[in-house]
């Protein structure tokens, strides 16, 4: 069938700069560039271009420019080019449209409507260059009260995990991303005193040595879950849902289940790794409690158990149930949470913005007097340390980053993760491509990112006259809203700027 899809991008090659080195040919994984030996000319198949800019970055003479195809259809606000192209794709395939990364639609980003406070005159700001500033965060259940005896603390504490920086790497499974990506994340987390998350794909033997900085996931497919896997980790996370696809399971396509991937998922090579939509032992809060305590038993009460849900309409009530079910950490993944593959219609239409979910969950747990019983971690589109500071002021204990970490490794959000052809070598298991992420360099890029954010967080705190992140946590008086309605301000629990 002839496709009616026009090229999405235009490839411009400056022939006076091109030296026929064929770097673009070798770097492109979507077969855009090719070299014609007879005519000594490079040609482009623009219809294949996904706009990942791998060729642009690696072209040694900067001969390439990739521009979006303007696709000047007749102006129509309802029938935008994307809408038209999706219909064309489905009429040619009859399938569920798949995509990668997070929701790219123009839902309001509340971080951009929240501003932080600073000290002026009436209380001094602190200079983080000369005074100690603390970002240390402890995740885990905190006691209702503490008792001291002659030998110090008498109260028995639930297991706590110490983070030097309140930013962790979100769940990305081996199979979705490559082993080199996971190794980069694990090494950076170890170096910076934070945690990375295996996702639902098991743990490669090469990464067991980073166990002290590892969160292992138990999700509906239970891939690679066995006693050794649970015991090596610092935290065990039960995954109920994901912001990019609330209520949906995962299908890792058979093509991505290579021999190596099959060894950590522990399924035969080439079969689909199907994660059912629900966990079939969890149909209620009581059932969740059963799995939480099964994992506590399986790890002899030595580590916190986290439960991750997608932020949805009833998150606050669900979160309350999760805490009562024994979760030591609850994780909320918002509307803009990312994925290696999800139905586009789900990614773009299901779930609620993380800012609103966080505010309402934190409120609800406080109202019920159980906020101390679990740490709250959020995920889903956190872009920089400003977002982190605002999230902490709204009530988060720590933040997961996924997309930001991948961008540090080269990702340009071309949203082709589900194809397994990632030209940046991130979201692929093709051995030729995975070499493009060198764990030495990857770990350095990620550590640099976290270091930069830590310094900025200290600057933000110092400006507020605060010397510990703990003093900002849940302190919404340090936030003001700009351009928000009364209802939005009420849900966020912040006042209008100027008031």
């Amino acid at each position, binding site marked *: 069938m002839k496709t009616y899809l026009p090229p999405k991008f235009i490839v411009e090659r400056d022939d006076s700069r091109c030296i026929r080195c064929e770097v673009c040919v070798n770097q492109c994984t979507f077969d855009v560039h090719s070299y014609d030996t007879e005519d000594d000319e490079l040609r482009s198949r623009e219809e294949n271009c996904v706009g990942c800019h791998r060729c642009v970055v690696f072209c040694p003479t900067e001969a390439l420019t990739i521009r979006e195809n303007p696709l000047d259809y007749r102006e129509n606000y309802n029938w935008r080019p994307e809408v038209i192209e999706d219909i064309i794709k489905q009429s040619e395939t009859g399938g569920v449209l798949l995509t990668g990364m997070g929701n790219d639609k123009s839902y309001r980003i509340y971080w951009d409507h929240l501003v932080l406070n600073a000290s002026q005159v009436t209380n001094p700001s602190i200079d983080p260059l000369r005074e100690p500033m603390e970002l240390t965060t402890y995740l885990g259940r905190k006691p209702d009260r503490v008792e001291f005896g002659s030998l110090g603390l008498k109260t028995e504490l639930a297991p706590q995990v110490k983070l030097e920086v309140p930013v962790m790497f979100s769940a990305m499974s081996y199979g979705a991303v490559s082993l080199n990506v996971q190794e980069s994340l694990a090494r950076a987390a170890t170096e910076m005193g934070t945690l990375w998350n295996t996702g639902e794909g098991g743990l490669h033997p090469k990464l067991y040595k980073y166990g002290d900085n590892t969160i292992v996931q138990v999700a509906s497919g239970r891939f690679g879950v066995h006693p050794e896997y649970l015991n090596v980790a610092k935290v065990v996370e039960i995954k109920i849902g994901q912001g990019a696809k609330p209520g949906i399971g995962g299908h890792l396509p058979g093509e991505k289940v290579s021999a190596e991937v099959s060894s950590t998922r522990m399924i035969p090579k080439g079969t689909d790794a*199907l994660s059912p939509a629900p966990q079939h032992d969890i149909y209620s809060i009581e059932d969740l409690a059963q799995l939480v305590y099964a994992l506590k038993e399986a790890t002899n009460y030595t580590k916190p158990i986290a439960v991750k849900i997608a932020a949805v309409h009833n998150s606050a009530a669900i979160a309350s149930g999760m805490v009562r079910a024994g979760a030591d950490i609850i994780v909320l993944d918002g509307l803009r949470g990312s994925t290696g593959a999800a139905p586009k219609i789900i990614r773009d239409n299901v779930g609620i913005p993380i800012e609103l979910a966080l505010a309402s969950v934190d409120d609800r747990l406080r109202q019920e007097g159980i906020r101390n019983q679990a740490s709250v971690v959020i995920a889903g589109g956190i872009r920089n340390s400003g977002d982190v500071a605002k999230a902490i002021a709204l009530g988060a204990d720590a933040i997961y980053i996924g997309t930001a970490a991948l961008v540090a490794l080269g990702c340009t959000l071309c949203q082709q993760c589900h194809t397994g052809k990632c030209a940046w070598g991130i979201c692929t298991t093709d051995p030729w491509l995975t070499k493009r992420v060198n764990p030495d360099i990857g770990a350095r890029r990620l550590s640099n990112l976290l270091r930069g954010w830590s310094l900025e967080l200290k600057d933000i705190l110092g400006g507020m006259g605060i010397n510990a992140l703990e003093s900002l946590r849940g302190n919404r008086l340090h936030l003001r809203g700009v351009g928000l309605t009364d209802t939005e301000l009420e849900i966020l629990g912040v006042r209008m700027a100027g008031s």
Partner: protein
Amino acid sequence: MKEAVTIDAKGIFYRELNAKLRKAVSNGTQKIELRNVYGQRYIGTDLDKPVEIEIFGTPGNDLGAFMDSPRIIVHGNAQDGCGNTMNNGEIIIHGHAGDILGLSARGGKIFVREDVGYRAGIHMKEYQDKKPMVVIGGTAQDFLGEYMAGGILILLGLNLKEGESHKANFIGTGMHGGAIYMRGEVQEFQLGKEVGVTELDENDHQILSQFVGEFAAHFGYEAEMILNNEFRKLFPRWLRPYGRLYAY
């Protein structure tokens, strides 16, 4: 080190009971007898030695969840989640078992003398020599072997009366690995779309005679009497049942 111990579980909360089990196993105990078990959960979880645990009474949910090597014998019925994500070992139940028996099991063997609840064997999986195996003496409820990705599920229907058929619907829905062997009547409409039905070959007969033999030895049946009946094999028609679902 003690060869065998008896623990009276009467009135003990599961956390305390399991702590006792951990301690006994780490002391090198080979055989543990649990008396007066009344619904305590997670028995056998976090045990990783081939200890034998004999249970008298009714163990609670998630019996042997995440278990790695013990052999558990239940003189009574098991509840839901028995053998949940089990890694290795053996569970022998002289009675019935509840829902999601062997959920996501990755290895080991489960024998149930009587009936089981819904979704038995759901999402069992196998890898190389790790191959979970479940034998059910009676019948099962709906969604038997749903999403099955590996392992062997044997349904014997020994308590079906003359002319009575299995009642389960949606058998093997979403199945993409492993095999289900069934004795007793089952109609086409009771099967999931993803399973095919075939006669047994030589290899299948070998598998059956081995595991039915073990089943018969556990519960005092004549293996030959069971094996002389007609069996059918259900198999996944595709390794990738949902491969054609998507547009790229």
